[in-house]
């Protein structure tokens, strides 16, 4: 029994990390005044680039780097439309999601004729970090996760400090809430929004790399499976607070993990696959009801 719990725990952490990373990235643009709906596509582009670069250079590090570069490039394209051209961010976000979803499938089909999956033994996975904490229980709980898992935990604190304690963080939040004050202070909103966008690209790229080089070691069609939008829900629920983002990401990760782990049971798999999405809808409803009852709860 404890074996099952341990498996679910490990799987929860693994599934929560992509959502966590994307939420942290989206959180930065959220503070800068952009509700980022392109995270789904950015994450997918990261996942694809990670596999391609890891395959080409036989190195997981190059995979992560490639994921970041490609995701940042697409994020800049998004920013060009939203910040410079002032296009509707929903419109261009969904266009970008569909563009990346179809482009990655198209390229996969060209490389591996007629298949929806990019899979090869030459793709190097992100190594797990194992170290000894002196007790079997602690080792089980805290070691042997991918490097990105530890990195993302550190990043929560970095982002938290960065957003609320540094001058740039102040400008970032001003760009979203008091743009006029920022203009008066002589700082260009567009510069802030572009930098936020680059940071968001980096985080979504990392999220994609975790999906395709650690959780599984392959790329498949639309493998982000709506997690970019789940991340958007996380941001809306957490109202931009990094610490809450961790808790909510873990909750969604748990249901992701459950939907995979329970598959041997009597429940048809389709109903299990629905679970993470139903939980997302449910938690949005619950949080809205509680906010309505007590508007001062943040």
């Amino acid at each position, binding site marked *: 029994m404890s074996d099952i719990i341990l498996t679910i725990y490990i799987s929860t952490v693994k599934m929560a990390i992509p959502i966590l990373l994307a939420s942290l990235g989206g959180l930065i643009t959220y503070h800068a005044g952009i509700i980022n*709906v392109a995270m789904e596509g950015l994450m997918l582009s990261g996942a694809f680039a990670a596999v391609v670069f890891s395959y080409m250079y036989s190195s997981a590090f190059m995979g992560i780097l490639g994921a970041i570069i490609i995701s940042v490039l697409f994020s800049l394209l998004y920013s060009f*439309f939203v910040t410079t*051209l*002032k*296009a*509707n961010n*929903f*419109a*261009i976000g*969904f*266009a*970008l999601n*569909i*563009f990346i*979803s*179809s*482009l990655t*499938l*198209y*390229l996969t*089909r*060209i490389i591996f*004729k*007629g298949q929806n999956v990019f899979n090869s033994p030459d793709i190097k996975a992100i190594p797990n970090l194992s170290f000894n904490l002196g007790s079997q229980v602690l080792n089980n709980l805290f070691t042997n996760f991918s490097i990105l898992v530890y990195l993302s935990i550190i990043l929560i604190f970095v982002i938290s400090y960065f957003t609320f304690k540094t001058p740039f963080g102040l400008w970032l939040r001003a760009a979203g809430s008091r743009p006029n004050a920022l203009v008066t202070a002589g700082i260009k909103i567009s510069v802030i929004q572009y930098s936020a966008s680059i940071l968001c690209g980096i985080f979504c790229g990392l999220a994609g790399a975790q999906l395709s080089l650690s959780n599984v070691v392959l790329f498949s069609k639309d493998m982000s*499976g*709506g997690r970019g*939008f*789940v991340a*958007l*829900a996380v941001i*809306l629920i957490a109202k931009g607070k990094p610490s809450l983002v961790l808790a909510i990401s873990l909750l969604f990760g748990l249901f992701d993990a459950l939907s995979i782990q329970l598959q041997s049971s009597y429940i*048809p798999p*389709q*109903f299990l*696959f*629905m679970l993470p*999405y*139903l939980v*997302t*809808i449910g938690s*949005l*409803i619950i949080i*809205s*009801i509680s*906010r*309505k009852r007590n508007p001062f709860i943040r």
Partner: protein
Amino acid sequence: MFNKTKILKNISWSWALFIGLIILSWSIIVLFSGENPLNVFYYLLEGSVGNYNAFFSTLDKMFVLILTALAVSIPGSAGMWNIGGEGQFLLGGFTAAWLAIYFNTHLASLNIIIVLSFSAAAGALWAYWPALLKVRLKVDEVVTTLMGNYVIVFFTSYMVNFPYRASDSTWPRTEYIPDNFIIPPVSNLPFSYTFFISIAILIFIEIIRKKSILGYEYSMVGKNELFAKQGGIDVGKVKVRSMMIGGALAGLAGGLMVLGLTYKFMDGFSPGYGYTGLLIALITGNLPIFIFGIAFIFAALQVGSINMQLFTNIPAEISKVLQSVLVFFITAQRTINIKIKKKERADNYE
């Protein structure tokens, strides 16, 4: 001084640049595959408008795109985002196939009307709850409608995999619908009356929008909610209704698809028609002639790419890549135009 020819010349130059850039980016994407872009464009055109058969097959695919685009643009005009077109479309399609198999009045016209009404109702129902949540509890409808899509994808997949799977099928699907449910083709041409139904709806909605109080109320809610409220409009009611109309149209598209094109419901029934409709709605605004035009181009790319796949090494999936590139350029062109107009206005004041 007002120089008409100079302005005309400028406009045609910007159009040439616009189209040139689109063709250039399309070519770059084709070049990834190592094929000659000119060949690829030839096969795309041949397969979509090259002969009567191809042309009518293109028209035959348009109804889905027109209706799923309207499913986004009607709630959009009342200030609501309906991203759930995909789920509403799937639910409408499944409802049609399910009803057609389990009930029969033995009167073709009555059958079709009843089944289509239920498809539309199913779509409307699936758009109802996110709208209600938005109006009552301020739950973001973008996320809820989108999450709802995934729920329906898995729900319909379960239905055709387990309870309603046809016994002789290798790919999960329902039984074929009986003959007296089928919307027939137009006099042996490869396209059915579904095309005219969608055009009729497009025109009807445009008339409602422009000429009726209802249409005025919707656009007022979309443009200035506070003003609409002051004017005595029940804003919440308008928003919920607009979403339900959108959902009904997407559901209807699913029903028409089963009765007029596939004659069954199967796993993978929609390769993302809901999202394609979303793209069309986003770039066309609310102008019906644009919806028609872009739906035609999108359908042509979709049908033409199947022909192209036969003669080249390029998978048909390229059609969606080309469609979304088109969306980028049209969005850029529109926003730049708005900027230029604003600047001209500012110049005039000086």
